[in-house]
């Protein structure tokens, strides 16, 4: 294996242009995509796609929930794992928030009722994260299977708590978070930007972020270097679950109702955002900025297809195709250089 990497490394220095293009592929793709929709909009409707504030705002709001799932997922994927349970962790948090806010608001008032609801929802979202982490770190269950099981469990529990239906919630503060604007920016977007900044800092500047890369790059080396890999792994899955939980909270605010299936279609979108953004499913690489670009690409595809009146189900097809292409590009890039491919 080390000889493969050596050969690959020698080749990569010979094709710096190709490597640079591969590294910038997400940016290029986003630019191409926007250009296509811009041309389409001008030709078909005689209007601008990007020059329209409503469109930009819609794309941003579209991107919020998948992005929140994706930034937590970015950490997990960099560490060489995957978290398939995020969609229903989001739903679980949405239902718990709705119930708690409904119970707490009459007793505590709007602000305090919301705070209690958010705290309980975040705690509830941590449960699947802790269980995932323990399964994977302590019992060495493969992440794919452990989190797939948790997908089922969180889904079932969320629907049970919801009584099989959506849970309407009425709280002015929550509604403001979901639908309000601050200085012309939707509050959900501002909160997501804040989450992005915090997680970007965590991934790129903290020891936890560094160990996330180390575990994904070479788990054995990380163990030998004295890193507590188990603890890092557990924290990774808790982080992913809490991000999903925050996604559920914003969803509930936006629709004034908690729904168990709130995050159901978002697993695909979030993983798409991460891999389009340049993270490798083999672990070891990826960035929050890349994931942001990836999430914008997914949102532009989805909103753009709606914008040009394509049937909405094509969105799933488009995002699925883009995931597969991204992984293929990543694999061929790894053969060309950049790292080892485990075959």
């Amino acid at each position, binding site marked *: 294996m080390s*000889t493969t990497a050596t050969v690959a490394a020698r080749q990569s220095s010979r094709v710096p242009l190709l490597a640079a293009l591969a590294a910038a592929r997400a940016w290029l793709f986003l630019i191409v995509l926007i250009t296509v929709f811009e041309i389409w909009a001008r030709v078909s409707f005689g209007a601008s796609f990007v020059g329209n504030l409503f469109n930009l705002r819609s794309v941003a709001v579209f991107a919020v929930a998948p992005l929140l799932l994706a930034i937590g997922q970015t950490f997990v994927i960099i560490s060489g794992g995957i978290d398939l349970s995020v969609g229903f962790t989001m739903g679980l948090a949405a239902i718990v928030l709705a119930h708690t806010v409904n119970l707490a608001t009459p007793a505590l008032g709007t602000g305090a009722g919301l705070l209690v609801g958010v705290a309980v929802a975040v705690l509830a979202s941590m449960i699947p994260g802790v269980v995932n982490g323990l399964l994977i770190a302590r019992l060495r269950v493969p992440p794919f299977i452990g989190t797939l099981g948790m997908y089922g469990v969180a889904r079932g529990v969320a629907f049970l708590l919801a009584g099989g239906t959506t849970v309407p919630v009425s709280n002015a503060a929550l509604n403001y978070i979901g639908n309000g604007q601050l200085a012309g920016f939707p509050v959900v977007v501002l909160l997501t930007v804040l989450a992005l900044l915090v997680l970007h800092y965590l991934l790129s500047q903290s020891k936890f972020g*560094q160990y996330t890369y180390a575990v994904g790059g070479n788990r054995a080396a990380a163990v030998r270097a004295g890193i507590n890999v188990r603890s890092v792994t557990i924290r990774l899955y808790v982080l992913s679950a809490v991000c999903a939980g925050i996604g559920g909270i914003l969803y509930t605010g936006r629709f004034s109702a908690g729904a168990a299936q709130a995050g159901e279609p978002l697993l695909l979108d979030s993983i798409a955002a991460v891999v389009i953004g340049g993270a490798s499913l083999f672990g070891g690489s990826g960035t929050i900025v890349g994931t942001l670009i990836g999430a914008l690409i997914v949102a532009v595809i989805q909103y753009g297809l709606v914008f040009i009146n394509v049937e909405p189900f094509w969105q799933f097809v488009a995002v699925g195709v883009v995931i597969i292409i991204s992984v293929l590009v990543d694999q061929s890039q790894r053969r060309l250089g950049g*790292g080892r491919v485990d075959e």
Partner: protein
Amino acid sequence: MSEGTPLLQASGISKRFGGVHALEDVDFGLAAGEVVALAGDNGAGKSTLIKIISGVFPPDGGTLFYQGSRVAFANPQDARARGIETIYQDLALADNLDVGANVFLGREPMTRRFGLPVIDRRRMRAEAAMTLDRLDIGLDRLDRPVSALSGGQRQCVAIGRALHWNARVLIMDEPTAALGVPEQRKVIALIQSLKAHGVGIVFISHNLADIFAVADRIVVLRRGTNAGERTRAATNPDEIVRLMVG
């Protein structure tokens, strides 16, 4: 041996696995600045001996002296903390991190930027560069992932990391096995420069040319016992092979 007190001395070491005597009454000594090659056929007990020295498992009999006092290592981390480091081919480095990050992996220095604690990458690179320079390991760039380095360069980075954290004894198991010839030369050159820094090196290799290129002394094991010990100057490859096969 060149000095009075050996850096490391294993005396009368025995180890059994079930009914098999992997090692029986084996003696092994290493002085600071000395390279001792451990030679022997497969199953002669070479890896059992280095695993005992590096704390992977305890001996059933015999004693281990390190830096003048008797030691019993609880685990490999314990041995590493006291300066006995094993360089493995594949377990050494996180390929996706740069040289500085690998040298400091698990012990990152922190600094503050805008009041927030951040990893001090500049310091990691600068100190890693100093250590590598001291060992004459020439790498043109330290800010690329180590996957961009050749096998020999990676080996050198792993060794540089051990030295940065004050390893006194380096155990190298087949350090040149997966390398091309120029790369092998680079590792051999590094071993020679480590000697000058007073590091004791245990060197396991099947390659007699490598052994004769770097070893001061050659300890030959055969079926778990000492088969002989020669200084390099007083022996030749034929004699070592005869000792190995008995």
